[in-house]
């Protein structure tokens, strides 16, 4: 019964174990896979909520797997950012699961469909659940090598998912994705090696407590950062992202864009602002900010020129990621909790909005057989809810109030102005303006019904295709209104080290 206590830290393995097990089950049984996946995702969501509750009542927790304490054992821990990321994954994942169900059954029921679709569905569930387990592991893990493992799990399953559509372009994109992901993880691993060589520690909490970071640790940080940047697809290393995301199946695109990218970014952010915060130099922050600014502008410019909807959405991901990095140089004007709040708001809003957008794009693709923007006039007449979802998600991307992205941009601008770094202001505003252009370029097509337009009557409507997207879009839009609550969770900071290690450092 002790196990079932609310304050038992071992609850935190649920989000890792459940999807993992469910993934295996899906792989083994091949029947009722949706039911298994759905229940796993549901449990995952509940677990995320539970962990939030736990965090709020008992504060941050640490759990050593198998009873092995750090530095030897692998530890998990919950704190504000981690549970919020779990929540984000849980909510988005749940909606994506529902959508995927609708997506696959639509394709399978399509009279012109082939076995291929059935097969895609069969592989989708286990891979997706594996990916989910990897992501949750990444958010919870407190051991840097374990983080590498989760990164690899994510990388493998994501690359496989990206290849799932079976189109030549998708396979090629997925191959490139896999290679760059490998390059990234190997660089990360090299960094771990340097780190271990310099201080012999792998536990993040312990590493944070190092009083002095030698050159080895700093080199390790640089290498790990580059590896993670590659995985996060920050300009100029974004080359793999647009083709991989745009050519994948719609639910997969949603997963990749909304969640996978966030995983590596989350890790990078943790390393820079928690673990090695003391060794970060202002110049390095500025370089990151500069790259972020480049990403905002370049991604937006590329998004504006795209002719295909999904590619446009993919490039907008490149652009939106930039905002996360612009927070780096501004962190000097604020304390750590505030920087976290920017990143969390931005990431959550973007996750919900982007997955909603990809879902909408997928639905449109399914119904019209293409996603050429110029031929999508009057989509609203056939798919009103999808278009609404797309529009609301677009509002979030533009950073208009009351979306979560607005809160993030507000904070960014606020610090930029407070510390007189007005050039970031210009970049942020330019990015928003361009987001407006690429979002509305599409929306204006969708909602306009010219005279004499005969809308295609669609016989088959799947609610699962439309409503999850709308729900996510609404969440992203209204996220700003629950900001105080999120901030409250975030304020539950990380663990006091003396509590965990009464014996002091080894």
């Amino acid at each position: 019964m002790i196990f079932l206590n609310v304050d038992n830290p071992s609850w935190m393995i649920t989000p890792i174990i459940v999807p993992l097990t469910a993934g295996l089950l899906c792989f083994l049984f091949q029947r009722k896979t949706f039911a298994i996946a759905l229940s796993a995702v549901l449990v995952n969501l509940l677990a995320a909520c539970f962990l939030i509750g736990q965090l709020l009542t008992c504060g941050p927790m640490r759990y050593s797997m198998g009873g092995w304490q750090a530095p030897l054992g692998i530890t998990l821990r919950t704190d504000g950012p981690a549970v919020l990321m779990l929540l984000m994954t849980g909510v988005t994942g749940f909606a994506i699961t529902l959508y995927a169900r609708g997506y696959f059954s639509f394709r399978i029921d399509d009279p012109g469909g082939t076995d291929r679709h059935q097969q895609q569905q069969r592989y989708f569930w286990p891979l997706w659940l594996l990916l989910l387990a990897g992501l949750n592991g990444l958010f919870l893990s407190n051991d840097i090598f374990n983080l590498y493992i989760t990164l690899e799990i994510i990388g493998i399953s994501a690359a496989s998912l990206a290849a799932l559509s079976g189109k030549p372009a998708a396979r090629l994109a997925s191959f490139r994705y896999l290679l760059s992901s490998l390059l990234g993880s190997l660089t990360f691993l090299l960094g771990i090696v340097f780190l271990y060589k310099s201080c012999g520690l792998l536990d993040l909490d312990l590493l944070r407590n190092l009083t002095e970071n030698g050159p080895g640790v700093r080199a390790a940080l640089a290498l790990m950062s580059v590896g993670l940047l590659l995985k996060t697809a920050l300009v100029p290393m974004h080359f793999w992202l647009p083709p991989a995301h745009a050519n994948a199946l719609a639910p997969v695109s949603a997963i990749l864009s909304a969640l996978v990218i966030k995983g590596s970014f989350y890790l990078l952010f943790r390393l820079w602002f928690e673990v090695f915060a003391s060794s970060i130099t202002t110049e390095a922050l500025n370089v990151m900010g500069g790259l972020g600014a480049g990403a905002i502008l370049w991604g937006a410019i590329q998004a504006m020129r795209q002719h295909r909807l999904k590619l446009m959405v993919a490039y907008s991901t490149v652009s939106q990621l930039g905002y996360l990095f612009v927070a780096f140089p501004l962190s000097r004007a604020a304390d750590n909790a505030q920087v976290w709040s920017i990143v969390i708001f931005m990431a959550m809003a973007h996750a919900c909005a982007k997955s909603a957008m990809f879902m909408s794009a997928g639905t449109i693709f399914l119904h019209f057989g293409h996603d050429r923007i110029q031929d999508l006039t009057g989509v609203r007449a056939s798919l009103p809810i999808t278009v609404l979802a797309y529009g609301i998600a677009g509002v979030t991307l533009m950073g208009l109030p009351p979306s979560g992205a607005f809160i993030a941009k507000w904070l960014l601008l606020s610090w930029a102005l407070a510390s007189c770094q007005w050039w970031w202001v210009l970049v942020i505003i330019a990015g928003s303006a361009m987001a407006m252009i690429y979002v509305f370029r599409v929306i204006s097509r969708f909602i306009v019904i010219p005279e004499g337009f005969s809308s295609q009557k669609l016989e088959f409507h799947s609610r699962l295709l439309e409503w999850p997207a709308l729900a996510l879009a609404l969440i992203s839009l209204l996220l700003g209104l629950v900001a105080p609550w999120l901030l409250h969770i975030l304020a539950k900071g990380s663990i006091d080290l003396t509590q965990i290690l009464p014996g002091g450092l080894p």
Partner: protein
Amino acid sequence: MNWEQLLLVSILLSSLIPGIIIFGLPEERHRLRTILNLCGAVVKISLIVIMDIGIYLGHTFEIRMPLIPGVELLLNGDPLSALFATLSSVLWLLTTIYAVGYLEDSPNRSHFFGYFSLCVTVTIGIALAGNLVTFLLFYEMLTLTTYPLVIHRGTDKSLRAGRNYLIYAFSGGAVFLIAVIWLQNVVGPVDFSATGFSPGFTDSHGTVLALIFVLLILGIGVKAALVPLHGWLPQAMVAPAPVSALLHAVAVVKAGAFGIVRIVLDVYGAQNLLLLGVLPLLGGIATITILYGSLRALQQDNLKRLLAFSTISQVSYIALGMSLVDQPLAVIGGLVHLVHQGLMKITLFFCAGNLAETLGIHHISKMNGVARRMPLTMAAFTIGALGMIGIPPTVGFVSKWYLGLGSLAAGNWWLLGILAISSLLNGCYFLPILIRAWFGKQQESWPEELYVGRFETRLMLLLPPLITAFTVMAAGAVANAQISPLAWVRFIVREYGL
């Protein structure tokens, strides 16, 4: 939640809920849609009237909702917001009636009316906003909800107009956002209050605050169509007439002007602005806009385009009034013009819409003798136009009168000259239209006579302009009565202690 807060929420919901339901209604159920729309509008007006009374009796209407430290949403019913909310809701009712008549038998009405309702919800939100963040929230949403209306026709021209509208509006919004954040950084969170922020900041951060003021005006000036940020407005007239009416008289341009009022009176406050010395700038921009709008209107042959330029010119009266913020008379003139311009301009747009919808007339050169075919419409148009010129007893005179007195009280003689010139120019472009319509000889048949029936046009198209035209006259004729826009504006000015 006390009843005041409940009232505020239900004011917003009274158009939001019908809007959402209308989105979901199938195209054919126009009767239910109309009923929903009208019920929403009537309920909204009644609620707002209750709020007005409450405000007059000294109740506070306030809802706070903190977001992040220093940023909170605040809905607040003060006399000024009551003014704008009442105007918008009343005109919304009329515009809805008009739109129902206007769009009879045209496609995509669910969509149209859905956005229509959302648009008004947002406008009321702007009226009730109690601080800059909330204002910004609704201000940006206004762009979003009006955009589908602007491009409703779906032609290339309307798409282009929509594109420009968006570019202008969001650029303005971005500048506004920067300014708001900057202001918060300097003076901390500011709620709209009668005095503005503490004058201590003006001493310590004078230059920065002046710069922020300029940015705020630039940002909001896009919607208020101040020259040179007005480019979107004449293009946006490709939208259907009810939308133009909405843009010009109820929502967008008015929201911009209202924003200027809020910034001047509530954010900075007269005291600070005088110390900062930025008011001449606002006055200068307003003056240029007044003259430029009138001069461009002189050139137009397209009726709606002419009206658009006239709006540009007229709305700047409000800004002009605000630039003399230390003069109560000028403030009265500016504020009351907020209402008066709305009444007059909506009349004119209704009439222009009637001409286009009934006879297919879009150009002034085709209007010869049209008053014989549509006497009531043209009578309403005439009243509106005379109001624009400022002929008593229309409301236009009342605004100009107070503005003139205010500018004299401030010692700005030249502003009086500007008002005079503007009146003359207004006469130069409105009077020829009236002459044509009433006394011109009809040369050929009407371009396309679409409606033949008992009245000169559909009743639903005819009633709203008649009502507004009557109000233009009546509100002017009883300007000094207990219940009139002027009386309420005087109440506001008293509240501000000017």
